[in-house]
């Protein structure tokens, strides 16, 4: 229907015609709804609350937030080392006279198998020990009650891969075995440590 009455006096209230909505607008709406569907298909993350921009699927989220086991262990070891061990061994791992021997470049830390240092950390260490040609004679307390197997393995992994040290990671299984061997009191210096096998 076309608009009635071509002109009215301006004082009267306005009226409206009855032309139906043009088909092209309806088709445009339809086309836009179609586009909208595709857009939501691609960009709505299936309406999942865990999917944030700019990711579209859960797999993308996972792929872009890689957290390897090694990374977790490294970070855990770093955290625990700096909370505890650095008080004596220093944050730089260089140790300090009267407090603790260095870990950087230490032959004990860099031994291919970590069994000896695992025993030292687990049971404590007292008596003479030579590190990098220097004689040390201090007391390290036992840490078996302060760290879980996982944490201790992480700390040892950390000191073996930080500050230029390069030695293989330590597994929690090994720590578990070391813990299972009871040892009264601390290890008696470098002598007793040397008698242990490097690897378990």
């Amino acid at each position, binding site marked *: 229907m076309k*608009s*009635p*009455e*071509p*002109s*009215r*006096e*301006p*004082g*009267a*209230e*306005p*009226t*409206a*015609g*009855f*032309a*139906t*909505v*043009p088909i092209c*607008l309806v088709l*445009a*709406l339809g086309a*836009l*709804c179609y*586009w*909208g569907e595709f*857009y*939501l298909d691609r*960009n*709505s*993350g*299936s*309406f*999942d*609350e*865990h*999917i*944030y*921009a*700019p*990711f*579209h699927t859960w797999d993308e989220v996972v792929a872009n937030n890689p957290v390897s086991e090694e990374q977790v262990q490294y970070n855990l070891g770093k955290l625990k080392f700096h909370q505890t061990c650095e008080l004596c061994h220093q944050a730089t791992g260089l140790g300090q006279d009267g407090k603790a021997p260095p870990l950087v470049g230490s032959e004990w830390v860099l031994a291919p198998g970590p069994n000896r240092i695992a025993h030292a950390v687990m049971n404590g260490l007292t008596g003479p020990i030579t590190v990098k040609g220097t004689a040390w004679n201090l007391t390290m307390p036992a840490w078996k009650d302060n760290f879980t197997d996982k944490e201790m393995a992480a700390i040892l992994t950390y000191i073996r891969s930080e500050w230029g040290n390069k030695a293989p990671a330590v597994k929690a299984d090994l720590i578990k075995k070391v813990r299972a061997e009871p040892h009264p009191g601390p290890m008696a210096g470098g002598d007793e440590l040397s008698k242990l096998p490097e690897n378990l």
Partner: protein
Amino acid sequence: MTATPTAPQPAATSAPLDIDASCRAPLLALFLSAALWLVLGTACTLLASIKLHVPHLLADCSALTYGRIRPAGLDCFLYGFGLQAGLGVGLWLLCRLGRTALLGSGVALFGMAFWNLGVSLGILGILIGDSTGYPAFELPRYAAGFLFFGYILLAIPAVMTFHARRPGLLYPSQWFVLGSIFWFSWIFSTAGMLLLCSPVRGVVQSSVSWWYANNLSEIVLGFMGLASIFYFIPKLVGRPLHSAPWAAFVFWMMTLFGSWAGLPEGSPLPIWVGSMSTVGTVLMVVAVLAVALNFYHTVRLNVNTLDADPTLRFCYVALIFWLIASAQQIIGALRGVNALTGLTWFGVAQKELQYYGFFALGMFGAIYYILPRLLQSTWCPHLLKAHFWLSLLGIVTLYLSHVIGGVMQGILLSEARNSFIDVLRSTMMAVRIGTLGELLIFVGALVFLLNFVKILSETGQRLRGDIMGRLS
């Protein structure tokens, strides 16, 4: 609801003169308050804008710091001017189109009083540091309560008047007015409950506040402005609106999809929230086209009508600004554009065009038509013309400078090697020009208030003269 009368017919007749007389008190109060808040609001945003160039200006006064004076100015505009002018125009439209006198004008006056109390408390609250921080919703909780109560008191006469209307077809402006009134009560109570009374957890607050701000701008104020435009353009051009079904299409498209706009992509909310918002915003295109085509067919580009009536001039410009602001919102929601222009002056420009361009001019046009008929007086034509040109030049300057500044800012920031402070310095020229625009808008608001005071004093003098004449 076509032939059967619904409520007992009021004693007042349906003559326009009597209808206007029944509205006189509440509308006068609403419009005068609105004019005063407009001046205060534009003064505050002007001061804020100046402080961007002279940061030390009044910097030691905590109530006038940028972060307080700017939201205060904006809320003066939205709540002091915007909703009062909108409700005043809305009430008048419901009366005129329903061909019935206003019912409950006393209630409306109370509502206006509570509303103004709420806005005053709110603005003072913002200045003393009780701002809520949410965009377009900075009024503190204690003010929001008064606002809501005042709003209900203002909505009751609207609904009563609508219910008492003469039987007949509804005109689009009536839908828009009712839609706006209904919408505000829902969004305001929701935002009040979920942000102020019992705050939701974490980023859900952002979703609610962005939803509220957009619905306030797009639906509440937008529909009031559209109601004015849909009424005055056909009426003053002397031709019927081309199509009511087209207007209905616009109405439902805006309520359904326009209410989804305003939530940006890339925010910490889940991705589907931003995407749904983008889809809704883009679907608004059909509504924008329908409005443009509807008015094109109504007016048939008969530009001689531009000189006919100042209201018509205001409404034409308001319509064009609505089309541009909506188009910008649609374009700005697209992901690629949002990545470039999000969080820059671009978004600010769109809001400014929506508020000061489309909505304010639509309201001015309506008030310039309504008030002389309420008071049986005339405006000063020079001040009116000055107001029109000041507002138009002001908003064009403000908008263009901020749009260009925003796009420039976005492009420069998209390069990581441009430092933030360098980008800021590059956009300052645009901001300076924008301040000039704000100055023009403020002066325009002053001129409007001056004209208002003039027409009131003229009416007062004439009434006094009449009374004296009758006594002697």
